[in-house]
C-alpha cells in the first residue's frame, strides 16, 4: 500500500500543479473523515454507562458526526470503553484487523490506558499491548466532556494526517 502510493507520487511529481491537486484531495478526504467517525458498538468494560451519557441528550456526540454503528465493516474507529480482559483483548484484535483501512483506536478510561484500579490483576491487559492507539482518555470513568475532548483530538489528528489512506 505504502509503496504503491509512493510510486504514484513519484509519477505525479512530473506534472506541474499536481501537488495542489493532491493537497485538495487530501483536504477533502480529511474533512470528510473528520466529521464522519463511526465507532463500533463495542463496550468492553464498565465505562459503558458514561459512554451512553455521552451519546445522550446533554452531551450528544452526534453533533461531531460520531455515530455508533453496528457492523465492523462499516466502522472506522474502535472505542475501547472500559477494562480490557485477556479474553476480550483477542476480540479487539480481530475487530481491528477486520476493519477497513483508515482506522483509529481510542482508549476510554483508566483501565485500557494503564489497567487502572486493576493494576495487579492477572486477567487484565492494557489496550496498547494489543492494538495501536491514537487517543488516550483518562478517568475512571472519564466525564463526558473528557470523552468529547478526546474525540475532538482525534478529529484534529485526522485532519492533520497527510497522504490519507496510508498509515506510516
Amino acid at each position, binding site marked *: 500500500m505504502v509503496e504503491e502510493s509512493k510510486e504514484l507520487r513519484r509519477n505525479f511529481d512530473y506534472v506541474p500543479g499536481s501537488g495542489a491537486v493532491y493537497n485538495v484531495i487530501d483536504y477533502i478526504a480529511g474533512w470528510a473523515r473528520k466529521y464522519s467517525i463511526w465507532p463500533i458498538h463495542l463496550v468492553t468494560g464498565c465505562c459503558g454507562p458514561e459512554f451512553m451519557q455521552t451519546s445522550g441528550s446533554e452531551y450528544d456526540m452526534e453533533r461531531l458526526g460520531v455515530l455508533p454503528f453496528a457492523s465492523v465493516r462499516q466502522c472506522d474507529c474502535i472505542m475501547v470503553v472500559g477494562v480490557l480482559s*485477556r*479474553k476480550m483483548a*483477542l476480540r479487539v484484535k480481530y475487530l481491528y484487523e477486520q476493519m477497513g483501512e483508515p482506522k483509529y483506536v481510542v482508549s476510554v478510561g483508566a483501565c485500557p490506558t494503564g489497567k487502572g484500579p486493576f493494576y495487579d490483576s*492477572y*486477567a487484565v491487559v492494557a489496550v496498547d499491548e494489543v492494538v495501536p492507539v491514537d487517543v488516550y482518555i483518562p478517568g475512571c470513568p472519564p466525564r463526558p466532556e473528557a470523552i468529547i475532548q478526546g474525540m475532538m483530538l482525534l478529529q484534529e489528528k485526522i485532519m492533520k494526517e497527510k497522504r490519507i489512506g496510508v498509515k506510516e
Partner: protein
Amino acid sequence: MSEETIINRIKEAHRDQIESATVMRVKRLSVVVKNENFIEVAESLRDTFGFTQPAAGGGVDYPSENRMQMIYYITNPEDKVLLTYRINVPRDAPKLPSLTKVWEALSFHEREAHEMFGFEFEGHPNMIPFLLPPDWRGGHPLRKDFKGEGVTE
C-alpha cells in the same frame, strides 16, 4: 421455623452423615458434610427441608491445613434462610461429586470453581472453560499459592 429448629432437625435426620451443623447468625446456617454422604444430604435438604433455591457456589483454600472447602449457598424461599453447604476435600486431590444432579443451576458455579481452584466435579455435564480464556495456562488463580500473571499462548 427458627434457625435452631432447622439445625436440630437436620442433625436428627443426618446424625452420622454430617460433620457439623451450626447457626452462624440470624438466618445463616452452616452444614459441613462428610464426603461419602454428599449427594444424599443434599437431596434431603432439597426435598425435606425446603432448600430449593440454589444461589451460588465457590471455594476456599486453606494451604496450611492442606484442604480446600467447597461451599454451596442455598436459600429456603419460605423461611428466607440462607444455608452454606460445605464439603472439605484434600488440596492435592480435590475430587467431589457434582451437585448439578440436585440443583442444576449450580452448573455455572461449579465450572467457575473448577478453573479458579481446580476442583474436579465428577458427573458434571458440561465442564468447559468459563471465565478464563480458553488458552489459559497460568494455573488456578484463587488458590493461595498462585503468584503473578497467567500465561496465555
